[in-house]
């Protein structure tokens, strides 16, 4: 089934916006019904294409935040202030609107319970989205593959899916979560409060002897710095997968 999903030609489809969920003050999840969706793997992304009345088009890629087990397809859009597409998707878009999209895309940055673990997921900001699809998939399959999520955000209010992540961490399935809040911390915060570095990765991540599958996603500078630290700590480069978000076009 996985092979069949990967071999199909990518075509533009029209999706219906079914739900809109405010995740943080700047991030909103768009949940869609996509007819004939061929299925996807956790970690893949899709392209959204917007067309203005005068024919002008803009296109952006978004990680699929929903797991393969979910019937509806969700993406989470972080609104970038002077962006072109994100203010529309995270603002103007209404339930009942239709969006053109194509996917799923990308067979490289994917995780499925059959790949085993332990897994180390490292997120910078909205880089948590594809990793959330992986955790949701893990939960849907009631997997006990040991998993750790290290999530870097500016403040507690910027943590996307916070309640759901905390619930998954509390369900005794073997998921541990650490946040590092780099700009502002709540009163009495005893967690990490700096950019992810080697010491933090050595402290919270799996030891190299455990040979974890590692997925790093976020802004390019964070991903590059974390990937380099992981290799310096002795993790196998072949077991580290990265998805750089880059300075997105917005």
């Amino acid at each position, binding site marked *: 089934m996985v*092979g069949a999903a*990967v071999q*199909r030609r990518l075509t533009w489809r029209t999706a219906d916006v079914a739900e809109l969920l405010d995740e943080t003050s700047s991030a909103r999840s768009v949940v869609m019904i996509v007819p004939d969706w061929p299925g996807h793997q956790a970690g893949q992304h899709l392209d959204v294409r917007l067309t203005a009345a005068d024919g002008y088009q803009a296109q952006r890629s978004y990680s699929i935040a929903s797991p393969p087990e979910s019937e509806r397809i969700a993406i989470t859009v972080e609104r970038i202030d002077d962006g072109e597409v994100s203010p529309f998707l995270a603002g103007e878009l209404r339930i009942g609107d239709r969006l053109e999209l194509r996917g799923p*895309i*990308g067979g*490289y940055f994917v995780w499925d319970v059959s790949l085993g673990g332990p897994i180390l997921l490292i997120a910078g900001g909205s880089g948590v989205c594809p990793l959330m699809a992986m955790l949701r998939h893990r939960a849907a399959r009631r997997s006990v593959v040991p998993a750790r999520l290290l999530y870097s955000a500016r403040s507690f209010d910027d943590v996307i899916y916070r309640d759901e992540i905390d619930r998954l961490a509390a369900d005794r399935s073997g998921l541990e979560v650490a946040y590092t809040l780099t700009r502002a911390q709540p009163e009495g915060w005893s967690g990490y409060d700096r950019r992810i570095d080697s010491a933090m990765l050595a402290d919270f991540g799996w030891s190299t002897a455990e040979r974890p599958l590692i997925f790093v996603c976020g802004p390019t500078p964070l991903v590059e710095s974390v990937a380099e630290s992981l290799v310096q700590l002795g993790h196998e480069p072949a077991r580290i997968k990265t998805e750089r978000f880059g*300075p997105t*076009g917005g």
Partner: protein
Amino acid sequence: MDGAHLKLDGNAMAGVMQELFVGDITAARGACAACGSIAVMGEQHAFMYPLSPGAVLRCAGCESVLMVVVRTRTRVRIGFRDLAWIEVSQPPTT
């Protein structure tokens, strides 16, 4: 006897190319002609539109340009530079 009888039309390659372009390219492996390193496409470095006039795939090892994709209004041009070869996995036929 020369090899002229071995020459086919380009459309004999159609099936081969369709597998290349329909399938998922990020899991495809490619070799860099400049430094010899072999890596999965998903691991290489990409510089993409709208932050570049076209998509440039660079070798993660030496940053040589492997492939360049330019989309015009009506065509897509795929340029090859230091990509020595590209290989896609397929499900076994039997």
